[in-house]
């Protein structure tokens, strides 16, 4: 209550509502009481603040009223924009936002496409690339096919020519035997010497084309080479070629093609020399026919001791064979040619100790029917 009375007094004093007596009394009170003095100063400040606040508020609301009134009277531009002005306004207001949005959209798009690129399974990419590479591939394949067709045509022509050649009668016929798995054969020179075409047939009836590598007419030895794609290199030759001279009366056997099937004959070594004391050959007591020419002569150990070459026309059961050591002579001579320097003759017989039947079984695949025209 006291406070309120004091406040009332202060306020009336500030507002100048006091009568002169009262005012004098209050001023004395102010001088003696610092609290009252402080209250007066404080309240003055407050009232000033209130006044200014009041005026501020009033002016504010008067401005608002003015605005509304002027807008209604059309003396200022209406808050509502119309037509082009509105478009311009909207554009001005939002162009920045629009630009930022566009940039964000662009960045986002790029980012997404990048991410998609990164995270897309690579296989697809590879497939696409493969497809693109396939075009040259296909071209290449086409070229290759064209080549192949041409090759085939050529082959057909070759075959045709071969077929044309086929009827060529192989007048000469004999036997030959492999001395190397790669297709080197030994036979008699007289069988093939005059032949333009040579063919060899194994005991299964498979015929291969062969070429004359070298002929030694003086020794009646010829080296052939099977020159045919169908011929498969054979493994180790089961027999060896003997360097030694054989003993008289040694039992021997031969395999040959006096006809189209392989024929086995056996006999013995009759003499160490050939016809009329020919040291090149040896004499055999064996039943031999024309086709036996060039056939290998084996001893009981499965070693080649000679090449069956001739027979005495006047006596049955007498044949001559070129001694096997001359095969070495021939091969050594052949090896001087660099193309054949690796040619090695089989020295060891793998069929030693087997009975003749087994030996023949193993050997027969290496003995060929040699034909020449």
């Amino acid at each position, binding site marked *: 209550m006291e406070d309120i009375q004091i406040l009332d007094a202060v306020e009336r004093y500030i507002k100048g509502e006091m009568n002169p007596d009262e005012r004098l009394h209050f001023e004395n009170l102010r001088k003696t009481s610092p609290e009252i003095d402080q209250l007066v100063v404080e309240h003055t400040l407050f009232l000033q603040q209130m006044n200014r606040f009041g*005026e501020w508020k009033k002016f504010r609301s008067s401005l608002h009223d003015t605005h509304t009134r002027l807008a209604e009277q059309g003396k*200022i531009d209406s808050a509502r924009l119309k037509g082009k002005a509105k478009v311009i*306004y909207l554009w*001005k207001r939002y162009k920045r936002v629009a630009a930022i949005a566009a940039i964000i959209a662009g960045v986002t798009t790029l980012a997404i496409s990048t991410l998609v690129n990164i995270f897309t399974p690579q296989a697809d990419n590879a497939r696409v690339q493969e497809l693109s590479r396939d075009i040259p591939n296909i071209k290449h394949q086409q070229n290759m096919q064209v080549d192949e067709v041409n090759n085939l045509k050529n082959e057909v022509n070759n075959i045709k020519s071969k077929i044309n050649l086929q009827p060529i009668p192989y007048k000469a016929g004999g036997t030959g035997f492999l001395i190397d798995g790669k297709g080197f054969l030994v036979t008699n020179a007289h069988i093939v010497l005059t032949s333009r075409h040579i063919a060899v047939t194994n005991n299964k009836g498979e015929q291969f084309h062969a070429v004359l590598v070298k002929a030694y007419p003086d020794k009646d030895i010829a080296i052939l080479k099977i020159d045919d794609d169908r011929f498969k290199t054979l493994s180790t030759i089961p027999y060896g070629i003997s360097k030694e001279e054989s003993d008289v009366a040694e039992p021997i056997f031969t395999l040959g093609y006096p006809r189209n099937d392989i024929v086995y004959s056996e006999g013995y070594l009759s003499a160490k020399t050939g016809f009329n004391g020919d040291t090149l050959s040896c004499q055999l007591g064996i039943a031999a026919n024309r086709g036996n020419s060039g056939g290998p002569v084996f001893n009981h150990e499965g070693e080649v001791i000679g090449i069956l070459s001739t027979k005495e026309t006047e006596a049955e059961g007498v044949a001559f064979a070129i001694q096997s050591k001359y095969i070495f002579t021939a091969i050594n001579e052949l090896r001087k040619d660099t193309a054949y320097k690796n040619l090695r003759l089989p020295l060891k017989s793998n069929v030693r100790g087997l009975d003749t039947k087994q030996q023949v079984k193993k050997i027969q695949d290496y003995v060929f029917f040699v034909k020449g025209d």
Partner: protein
Amino acid sequence: MENIFFQVGLGLLFLKISIKINGIVKPENNEKTLLKGLARSDKKAVETIYKDNFNMIQSLILNNNGSSDDAKDIFQEAMIVLYEKVRSGTFELNCQIKTYLYSVCRRLWLKRLQQLSRYSNEVADIQTSVPVEDDVEDHEKRNVEFEMMDKAIDSLGEPCRSLLEAYYLQKKTMQEIAAGFGYTNADNAKTQKYKCLVRLKKIFFSQYKNGKQ
């Protein structure tokens, strides 16, 4: 292109208005009269200044990413700055009202843009401006104080708020207030008013101190 036409259009409008004004009184005298009127918060003077300058400010704000509501806000704020200035008695007119208002609005809008977003720190000028930084700063300080007072009065609640507003702001007499609020006599109303005033002062001075810190 439209932009240019728009601005030319506005320019022509201003020209028309200024010709009208010039036709009535000499511009210098006219401006002084207007400012005197403004200091008294004379309705006519306020209205004249308002309608002479608002369109220019509106186009300034609209040209710088603002809306017409922003324009109204900013212009009224500038009017208050001018009002406070002429009332302080220290104001000397060394430029046109138009230039002053424009400069204040420009400054205020720049500040507003900086507060709203960081991407705009430039305002495309449509007119020359004078330095008004200090005035704007003073105005902002006062605004803070007035807002403090507003808040303080609001936080009193009814009937204190209306009672105090009626007496101190609307300057009604205690008899009128007593009748209006239904008090049996003016003394009771007065007692009630002082109770409210003590509360308000408490709140205001505590806020005032906090605000000053």
